[in-house]
């Protein structure tokens, strides 16, 4: 049965159009992290991995994987194992990821409890995949920065001392060119309420007692209530599940436990320091930013030492596939599947466990 491979901007596709069904396997360049799970699970050895370390470090421009359309039988095992959504198999237009009959890795998930979220944006900052967006709308400044600023024009000598001290640059004096008909160099003074924070510094520094400031926020007056989340500060934290790799950075930094992340595998990453050459290919490829070579604290330490944060790792295996010396071993003990059948599929999934 003839299979056709086509390239498009975002990747490639392989399809087979038979009498009864059309099967189409898609690969998306941008989603692929180069973990090599597909390579391990493919029952017909149709998948080849590119020079992952060099690609991750930006040294060569190549695809992270390639699929031989003559060997590929379009079974969909690779798509079912790809939890980065870089591979998808559509049978007559329907993705096998949506077909409950096929086993899939189901552990990977992220849930945000909006009621707990305080819109601090820290998750957005740390997310290594740019998968989180915090949309935060703040109530207008006028709701909280409010008061009265009065300049007594009879007392004011337009010296501008208040403007020199104003920390918010809110006092504006209108200097003009003195002329014989109007010899005064300043013709007006004004407090810009858009900038003024009613701090009363001008009131204190004015040697002529010409300024009076009333701050409505001050404890003595308290005419305005405190800001309330979801009343004055509204918004939503949105996660793009397609981009999310469930690394757990967001869960770790969330101050209110509003994010829960589930990981697909149980296990650990083991580093053989004898073999490690500190080339940093693993650091470059890791989709979770879970690996780093910290700066040596001790100056005598010449060789950089790789550190992995197991809590931020999803055990995808990209590091071990990219490592040129085989110094990293990813041990997966269990995988969560949504279905235990077909048996042949389950057996292939067991291949990615150790």
């Amino acid at each position, binding site marked *: *049965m003839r299979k056709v491979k086509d390239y498009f901007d975002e990747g490639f596709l392989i399809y087979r159009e*038979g009498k009864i*069904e059309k099967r189409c396997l898609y690969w998306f360049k941008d989603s692929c992290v180069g973990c090599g799970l597909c390579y391990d699970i493919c029952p017909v050895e149709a998948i080849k991995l590119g020079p992952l370390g060099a690609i991750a470090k930006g040294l060569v421009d190549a695809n992270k994987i390639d699929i031989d359309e003559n060997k590929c039988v379009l*079974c969909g095992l690779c798509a079912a194992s790809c939890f980065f959504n870089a591979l998808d198999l559509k*049978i007559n237009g329907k993705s096998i990821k949506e077909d409950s009959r*096929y086993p899939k890795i189901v552990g990977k998930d992220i849930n945000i409890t909006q009621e707990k979220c305080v819109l601090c944006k820290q998750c957005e900052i740390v997310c290594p995949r740019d998968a989180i967006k915090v949309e935060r709308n703040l109530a207008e400044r006028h709701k909280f920065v409010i008061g009265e600023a009065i300049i007594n024009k009879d007392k004011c000598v337009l010296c501008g001392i208040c403007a020199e001290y104003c920390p918010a640059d809110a006092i504006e004096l209108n200097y003009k060119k003195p002329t014989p008909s109007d010899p005064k160099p300043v013709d007006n003074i004004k407090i810009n309420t858009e900038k003024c924070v009613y701090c009363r510094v001008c009131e204190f520094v004015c040697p002529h007692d010409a300024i009076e400031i009333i701050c409505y926020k001050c404890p003595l007056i308290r005419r305005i209530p405190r800001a309330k989340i979801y009343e004055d500060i509204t918004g939503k934290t949105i996660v793009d599940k397609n981009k999310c790799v469930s690394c757990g950075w967001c869960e770790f930094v969330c101050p209110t436990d509003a994010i829960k992340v589930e990981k697909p595998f149980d296990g650990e990453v083991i580093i053989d320091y004898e073999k490690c050459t500190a080339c940093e290919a693993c650091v470059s490829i890791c989709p979770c930013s879970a690996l780093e070579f910290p700066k040596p604290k001790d100056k005598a330490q010449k060789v950089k030492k790789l550190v992995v944060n197991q809590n931020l790792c999803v055990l995808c295996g990209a590091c071990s596939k990219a490592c040129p010396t085989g110094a990293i071993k990813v041990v997966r003990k269990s995988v969560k599947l949504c279905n235990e059948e*077909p*048996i*042949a599929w389950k*057996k292939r999934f067991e291949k990615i466990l150790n």
Partner: protein
Amino acid sequence: MPKHLLSGIKAIVTFKLKEKGLSNKEIANILKCDRSVISHYLRGTFPKKEILDFVKIIENLPPACGARLIHGICKDKELSKILIKELYNVELIWDKEKCIFCGTCKEECNAIKMENLNIIIDYNNCSYCGLCVLECPVKALKFIKKGEINEKS
């Protein structure tokens, strides 16, 4: 030449059927030929020894390869099916535990259907052509000797 080979295959099958205790008439009916031809086969007057020796080689081929060959020699699908089944004494078996449901087999053949992650072989329409056996990437479709099937079950 294909005709001679076909006669050779028929002759070998005739021996096998005779061993099973079938009469010449029954064998002639099965192989769709005249009774006199069957008696020629049994007496050894026809076909020649070289032909029979060559058919022995075919008989020792993997059944799927032999099946492709027989279908190439004999255009009658029904007859080919009988010859293959008798020559190799095989059944087409689908191994659920090996199947990855890639659908390759059903694209090649009208006798195979995939329903709800089950492969259903319509044995009446199957001509034992062996294409599915050769195409299956994980050897989930196989010709298995009849004795071995019983041992398995």
